[in-house]
C-alpha cells in the first residue's frame, strides 16, 4: 500500500511541477526529416548536378585545348576552369557516402600543389591518380599550375604545349586531369541519384551515424578546416607563426583566391540557412531548427548571431586583395582580422549550436554513463 501511495505522491509532484517550469521546446515535434529533404533535394543534388555539368564542360574544354593548343583554347579552358572551381565550392562540404569513400575533397582540391610530382608524372608518362601520394598532383590546384604556373606569361605557358619536347605529354596530362575531375564527380552524383538520396533522407534517427549528425559534423569540419583554416588561416600563418603566401587557393592564377573564398563563404551560409541552390528561397535548415528550439545566447537568437557573424566575416573579406597571396605579403593584418571573424563563428556553431541540437561532435560510439 505504502508503495502505491509513494508512487501516486511522486507522480503528483511531477505533474505539479511540469506546469510551472520554464518552457523549453514546443509541444509539437520538429520534423527533422524535412531538413534532410531540403538539404538533399534543394541543395545537395542541384549543386552536384550543376557542378557535374561544369566538369563535363571542363573536360570538353581541356580536350579541345589538348587537340589544338592556342591562345583561344587556353583562354576558354581557363575560363571554364574558374567556373568549375567556383561551382566546386558549393559541393566541397558534402563529403559523405561515395564522396567519403573516394576522399573526394583530397582528390579535387588539395593545395599547395606538388609541382615536382606533376613534372615527374609528365616526364614518366604514367601515373595512378588513385594513389594517395598523387592527391596533390591532381584536381583544380594541378590545373591551376598547368594553366598558369608553367611559365611567366601566356606565351611561355603555351610553349609547353606546343614546342616543348614533351608537349604531347603536357597536353595529355591536362586532359587527364579534367577527365579525372569529371569522372569522380560523375561517380559521386550518380551515387546520390541511385539510392543514396533516399538512404540519406530516411536515416532521420538521432544516432551518431544518422544523416543529421553526420552532415552537421561534416559541415562544421568543412567550415573549420577547409574554409577557415585552408583558405584564410594557413596562408595568413595562423598555424605556423609566419605567413605562407604560397598556400593560397589558386596560387598560380593569382587573381581568384578571394573570389573562390567568397563563393565558399556564401555556400556555407546558404547551407546554414537552407537556401535552395541557385535561388534565394530558404527551406528547413539548421537555422529554422534553432529558431524552433528558440535557442538564445545572452538574450539574442543564436540563428541571428550566426548569420550576423557570417556577415561580419564577409564584410572583412570584402576589403581583401583579390589575390590573397599578395594580401598576405603586403598587409597580413587584414587577413588575420578576417580569420578572427570566421573563428568567432566556430564557437557559435561548434559549441552553442551543437549543444542546442544535442549533436555529438565525434563519431566514436563509446559508452557514456
Amino acid at each position, binding site marked *: 500500500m*505504502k*508503495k502505491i501511495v*509513494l508512487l501516486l505522491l*511522486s*507522480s503528483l*509532484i*511531477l*505533474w505539479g*511541477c*511540469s*506546469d510551472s*517550469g*520554464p*518552457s*523549453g*521546446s*514546443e*509541444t*509539437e*515535434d*520538429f520534423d527533422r526529416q524535412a531538413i534532410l529533404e531540403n538539404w538533399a533535394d534543394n541543395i545537395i543534388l542541384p549543386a552536384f548536378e550543376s557542378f557535374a555539368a561544369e566538369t563535363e564542360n571542363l573536360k570538353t574544354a581541356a580536350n579541345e585545348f589538348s587537340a589544338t593548343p592556342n591562345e583561344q583554347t587556353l583562354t576558354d579552358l581557363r575560363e571554364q576552369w574558374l567556373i568549375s572551381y567556383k561551382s566546386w565550392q558549393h559541393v566541397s562540404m558534402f563529403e559523405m557516402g561515395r564522396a567519403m569513400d573516394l576522399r573526394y575533397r583530397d582528390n579535387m582540391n588539395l593545395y599547395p600543389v606538388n609541382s615536382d610530382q606533376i613534372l615527374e608524372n609528365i616526364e614518366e608518362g604514367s601515373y595512378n591518380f588513385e594513389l594517395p601520394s598523387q592527391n596533390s598532383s591532381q584536381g583544380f590546384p594541378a590545373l591551376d599550375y598547368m594553366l598558369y604556373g608553367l611559365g611567366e606569361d601566356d606565351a611561355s605557358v603555351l610553349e609547353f604545349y606546343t614546342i616543348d619536347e614533351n608537349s604531347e605529354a603536357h597536353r595529355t596530362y591536362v586532359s587527364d586531369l579534367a577527365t579525372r575531375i569529371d569522372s569522380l564527380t560523375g561517380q559521386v552524383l550518380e551515387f546520390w541519384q541511385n539510392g543514396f538520396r533516399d538512404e540519406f533522407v530516411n536515416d*532521420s*534517427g*538521432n544516432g551518431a551515424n544518422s544523416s543529421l549528425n553526420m552532415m552537421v559534423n561534416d559541415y562544421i569540419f568543412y567550415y573549420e578546416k577547409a574554409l577557415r*583554416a585552408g583558405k584564410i*588561416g594557413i596562408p595568413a*600563418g*595562423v*598555424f*605556423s*607563426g*609566419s605567413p605562407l603566401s604560397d598556400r593560397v587557393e589558386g596560387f598560380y592564377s593569382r587573381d581568384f583566391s578571394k573570389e573562390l573564398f567568397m563563393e565558399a563563404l556564401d555556400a556555407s551560409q546558404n547551407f546554414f540557412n537552407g537556401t535552395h541552390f541557385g535561388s534565394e528561397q530558404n527551406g528547413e535548415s539548421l537555422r529554422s531548427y534553432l529558431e524552433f*528550439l528558440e535557442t*538564445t*545566447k*545572452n538574450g539574442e537568437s*543564436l540563428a541571428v548571431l550566426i548569420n550576423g557573424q557570417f556577415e561580419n566575416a564577409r564584410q572583412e573579406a570584402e576589403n581583401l586583395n583579390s589575390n590573397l597571396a599578395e594580401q598576405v605579403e603586403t598587409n597580413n593584418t587584414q587577413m588575420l582580422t578576417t580569420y578572427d571573424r570566421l*573563428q568567432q563563428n*566556430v*564557437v*557559435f556553431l*561548434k*559549441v*552553442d549550436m*551543437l*549543444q*542546442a*541540437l*544535442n*549533436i*555529438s*561532435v*565525434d*563519431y*566514436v*560510439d*563509446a*559508452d*557514456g*554513463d
Partner: protein
Amino acid sequence: MNRISIQSYINKTSDAAPLAVFRILFGLLMLISMIRFAANGWIQKLYIEPTFFFSYYGFGWVQPLGEWTYLIFIICGASAIFVSLGYHYKMAIVTFFLSFTYIELMDKTTYLNHYYFISILSFLMIFLPAHAYYSVDARRNASLRSSRVPSWTIDSIKLLLGIVYFYAGLAKLNSDWLFRAMPLEIWLPSKYSLPILGDLFQQSWTHYAFSWAGAIYDLTIPFLLLMKRTRLLAFALVVIFHVLTRILFPIGMFPYIMIASALIFFDANLHNAILQKISGWFSISKSFFDNAGVYSFSKSWIKKSTLMLVSIFFLMQLLIPFRYMLYPGELFWTEQGYRFSWRVMLMEKTGYANFKIVDTEKNQSFYVDNSLFLTPFQEKQMSIQPDFILEYAHHLEKHYQKEGIEDPEVYVESYVALNGRGSQPYVKSDIDLTEIKQSFKHRTWLYPFNDEIKGL
C-alpha cells in the same frame, strides 16, 4: 550502537548463496564486457591509435602498451572467468581488480562512473569470501567449503550499491536538474525517432517528470530494496529504470550489471533456486556444498585487518563525493571533485579550445590544430575539463620544445556551454598555462561561472 551489538553483528552469519550467485554473475558480465569492448574495436580506437593519453594526477606511469594492450584485456577477461568459476578466486579477483583498474587509468578520456564502480567493487570483493560456496575452490578444498558466510560480507555489497544510488540521487538535488530539467531537456527531444516516447520527449512536462522521477528513484531505491515488503516492486523499478536508460543512452553493459547486482537484496531462497537451476544444466551436485559450515577467516588478525580495511573503504566512499565542498566556485564549471562521486548524467557540456603557442624569442605566435595530437573523442573531453586542458597544454609545451622553440608559452581561448546556457569563456586566455602546475589546489585560472546552480 554499542560494542556488543557491533560484535554480534560481525559474528552474525547468512546463507552463502547470494554471494556465490553475485560472484558468478559478476564474472560472467565482466567477461562479456571485455569481449564486447574488443569486438567494438575500442581497444584499437581508444588505447592504440591515439598518440597521447590523459593521465590521472600521479598516474602518468600508467600508459597503454601498444599492441600489448590487448594482453591486458585478455588477462582481465580471463580473470573474470576464474572469478565466475571461483577457481583460485583470491588470485583471480586481485588480477581482475589490477588489470581492470590499469585499463581505466590508461586514459581518463574514457572515465565513466560505472567503470569506477567496477573497480571499487572488485576491490571490495578481494576481501569477501565469495568463493566459499559453490565454487571450484570450495569443491577442492574442504576447509574452505561453507554454506554460511558472515552477514556483513553480503551487506557490504548492498551498502556499496546503496551508496551508488543514494549519492547519485543527492547529486540530482540541484536547481539545474529539478527546476530547469537540465540536461534532460536537451537530451530527450533529440530522441524523437523512438516510437511513442519520441513524441512525449518533445514536451516540457516529460523532461520534468523524468528528472524528478530519476531523483526520487535514486534516493529511495536502496531502501525499497532493503525492505521485504517493497522489494519486488523495487526490483521491477530497477529493471524498468535501467532498461529505459539503456534505450535512451549509450551506456553499454551498465544497466545489466546493476540489474544483476540488485539481486543480492533478495533472500537466499531465490539464490538457492538459481544455483539449483545451474546445477541442473551442468550436472553439478549442489548438495555437496551444503555443509552448514560457517566461513571463518583463517587467522584472527586477518579477520581484524579485513574488517578494518573494509571499514576504511566505506568511510572513504562516504566522504570522497563531498570533497568538492573544499573548493570554491561552481562544481559543474570547475569540475574539482566531480569524478568518483556518482554524478551521473548531470551535465551537458560542450566546449571548444583553441591553443596558441608563443615563441617569445622570435616574437611569433601560432595556433594549434588539435587533430594532430588528439582523437575527436579526446578533443571533445579535453575542451570541457580544466585538468585535461592543462595537461594538454603541458604536452604541447614539450612537443614544441622538441621542435626547437626553447621556451614556448601556451595560451588557450576556450569556451564552454553548460546545460543549455550560451557559451562562456572558460580558461583565462591571458594565462601562460606552462606556468601552472597540475595540483589539487583551487583553479584560479578559470573565468568564474556567470550563473548560479543551487543545491548539493
